[in-house]
């Protein structure tokens, strides 16, 4: 029976790696669409690459330990192994080796990614570096947000800055659930919550930020391809958490301006006659 169990444990690295390989290969039915969603941002590849790097590293460790485990179980099966037990309490050398090596590797991974983290969460786009001409100081002129997204049970309320570039004034354009963004521009969005925690998740831009009531938060990105994508809420916000689906529309600047103007006109509609139809 020992052989059978050893082989069962061998299946773990084999099938484990197998599933990942099949899922990651493009166009592989039946697991088509079971890997990263399309990345349409300038910086998303950093996250994808980091993930893949860790995947290869851990994959190698997974395979190595899985094979070794199988091998030890197979070889040292009591019913098949006639040799006496190796009466050994450990190996100081091995302990050092397999402490130092993982430690160094892990530290390397940690430090290697700090820049990506800072870029995503700490370096907000600026219009100018201010009087001191140094970026990252307090006199930088920050890029104002294009739109304020308020998470609310259970929708995304949008408020685009009007001609005055300020959000919170009467010329703002209001919307709900359908976020339009111009492509190939550095965009800053302001995030707010009206009631409970939400989380603004754009899978195709590899972005996520929990929205905390009482805090004004910002997210920034640059989209590189047009198209329609999902907005997902990624923090439990009540029974309608699953319903908080938004639509992200990335379009050219001209299309965006045209859309915004149409929304503004509709929002300011002062006439209606029965011959028209809405929608």
């Amino acid at each position, binding site marked *: 029976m020992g052989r059978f169990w050893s082989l069962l*444990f061998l299946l773990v690295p084999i099938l484990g790696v197998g599933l990942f390989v099949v899922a990651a290969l493009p166009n592989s039915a*039946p697991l088509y669409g079971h890997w990263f969603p399309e990345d349409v941002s300038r910086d998303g590849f950093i996250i994808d690459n*980091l993930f893949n790097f860790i995947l290869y590293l851990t994959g190698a460790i997974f395979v190595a330990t899985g094979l070794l485990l199988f091998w*030890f*179980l197979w070889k040292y*099966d009591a019913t098949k192994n006639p040799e006496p037990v190796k009466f050994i309490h450990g190996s100081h050398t091995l302990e050092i080796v397999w402490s130092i090596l993982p430690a160094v590797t892990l530290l390397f991974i940690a430090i290697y990614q700090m820049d990506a983290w800072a870029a995503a969460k700490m370096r907000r786009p600026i219009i100018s570096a201010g009087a001191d001409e140094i970026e990252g100081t307090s006199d930088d002129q920050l890029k104002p947000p294009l739109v304020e997204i308020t998470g609310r049970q259970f929708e995304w309320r949008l408020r685009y800055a009007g001609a005055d570039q300020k959000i919170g004034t009467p010329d703002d354009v209001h919307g709900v659930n359908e976020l339009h963004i111009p492509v190939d521009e550095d965009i800053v969005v302001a995030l707010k919550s009206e009631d409970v*925690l939400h989380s603004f998740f754009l899978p195709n831009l590899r972005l*996520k930020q929990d929205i905390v009531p009482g805090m004004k938060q910002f997210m920034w990105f640059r989209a590189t391809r047009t198209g329609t994508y999902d907005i*997902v809420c990624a923090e439990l916000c009540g029974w309608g958490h699953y319903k908080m689906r938004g639509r992200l529309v990335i379009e050219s600047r001209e299309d965006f301006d045209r859309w915004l103007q149409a929304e503004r006109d509709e929002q300011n509609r002062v006439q209606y006659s029965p011959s028209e139809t809405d929608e």
Partner: protein
Amino acid sequence: MSSTTTDSQDHATTPARGGVGHFIGKYVFSRDHKIIGIQFLFSTLLWFLIGGLLALGIRWQLAWPWSNMPVIGNLLFSAEGGQISPEFYTTLFTMHATVMIFFVIIPILAGAFGNFLIPLMIGADDMAFPTLNMLSYWFMWPAFILIGMSFFTPPYGAGAGWTSYPPLSAMLGAAPGSESAQTLWLLGVTCVGISSMMGSVNYLTTILQMRAPGMTMFRLPLTIWSMFITAILQAFALPVLTAAGFMQLTDRMLGTGFFLPEGLIVNNSAMASGGGQPLLWQHLFWFYSHPAVYIMILPAMGMVSDIIATFSRKPIFGYKPMVYSISGIAGLGFIVWGHHMFVSGMNPVLGMTFMTATMMIALPSAVKVFNWMGTIWGGKVQFTTPMLFATSFVSMFIIGGLSGIFMAATPVDIFIHDTYFIVAHFHYVLFSGTAMAVFGAIYFWYPKMFGRMMNETAGKLHFFLTFIFLNGTFYPMHILGVVGFPRRLADPYHYETFAQLQPMNQFMSMCAIGMVATQIIFAINIFYSMFRGPKVGRNPWKSNTLEWTAPSPPGHGNFDFQPIVYRGPYEYGSPEVDTDYYLQTQPPPEAESSGDGET
């Protein structure tokens, strides 16, 4: 202290004489650590069943959203044709996690196995504080009743997640499950906390003060080391959760504003509170709950070490490094809580500090895995049921541990936070890891608890089916996480990004149903063997540690001789003796030739 029993040694198996009064005196009011341990064991196994059924509800909804949910749909939602409501789904996942964490894993490791094994393995006749021990079990019952009551309040339970983040949990109108059910939840969890604290105090004192002569700290079995370190973790971390729980209670009921900022409009009412910060709860909660996850794995690791050494017939590879690793995991465990909060809105600088600490915590875990493999290498492996479960712990923990590295990487966590990648990770460490270790421990120590062996064939069948089904249920969750499939969504398929993932979810749900059904074999085995299993002597597994020198099951006072310890717990295959095991209490050959070795 020497044992004093002169009449029947086997109180645990003697049929109750004298009717109900005797039964109550013997079982309900027992202060014997073994009885208390078994009380914990059966209570937690019952809640395991409940938690598992709740999980099946989740899996059903994810496989066939809005379809007629068996049993529970007909019972509670017959007007809608058995289709559950969205708030019921929030209750399902909240209560599944709450039950599994607070009523199953933590009490079964510390309350059941800790209680049963600690005095036996260190050579004591009972815990340092037997009455406190009895109370620690009793305090679970208010928790059971409170949480049980919450199942009957609308919408059938608390619904703010087991993490209970405010403002959702702290404002009564914010969620259907945030009304009285949430209050009951908070009170229930507090009772569990009190029970755990009592246990911690007991275990620490017992291990430090009541070891048998010759049992130095570095001769303790790793099970005891892990219980010891776990008790320290409990003692330091729990008060923070209790305090946070009270703060949330007062926010809900007394109008305080610890976690509630001003200006909130919930369910169309402006909230009259302010000055609070939702992130404060997250910090306090995870300050406890991160060490809690180590509380939920370290005892399992300890028990796995004992089982693997026993069935490899070989000493543990690197005993002291193993002890240091346990301590390292526990120590580091206190400074990594922020990795649950990378995208929470806390200062991003903290993301870097917590990332570094979190990466480092993978190191002692890796050292342990290597040492387990080193233990198996060069041994004579006996593929008994406990050994199969213990080995699968190692194999599955590798997966769970490695998947943790992805989420430790802060930029990657931006994408996989709150997706099924996280769910995969913690189910691998908690179910494929800890629960498998618990199953193995039950098979291993069952003969000591009940004096009979569990059926080995049924055990192997239980292992095989559970192993297959759990991997089928949880491994694909990694893939789902890579797609970005979010947690806690009652109906994820109306998103374009996730619409194609339903078949995989259906596969996982079918495996989950198989997995829960398989546990029927286990349950039957437990109960049947208790009455019809083959009786065994003191040491059916030929293991070294002290509990195997006591009768099976031990009577009050545990040992019928004073244990004296001469060596460490893992001297299997020692050249000093002919047998391939070498009891800790067996005097060395020179002393034996000059007498009977007893003081």
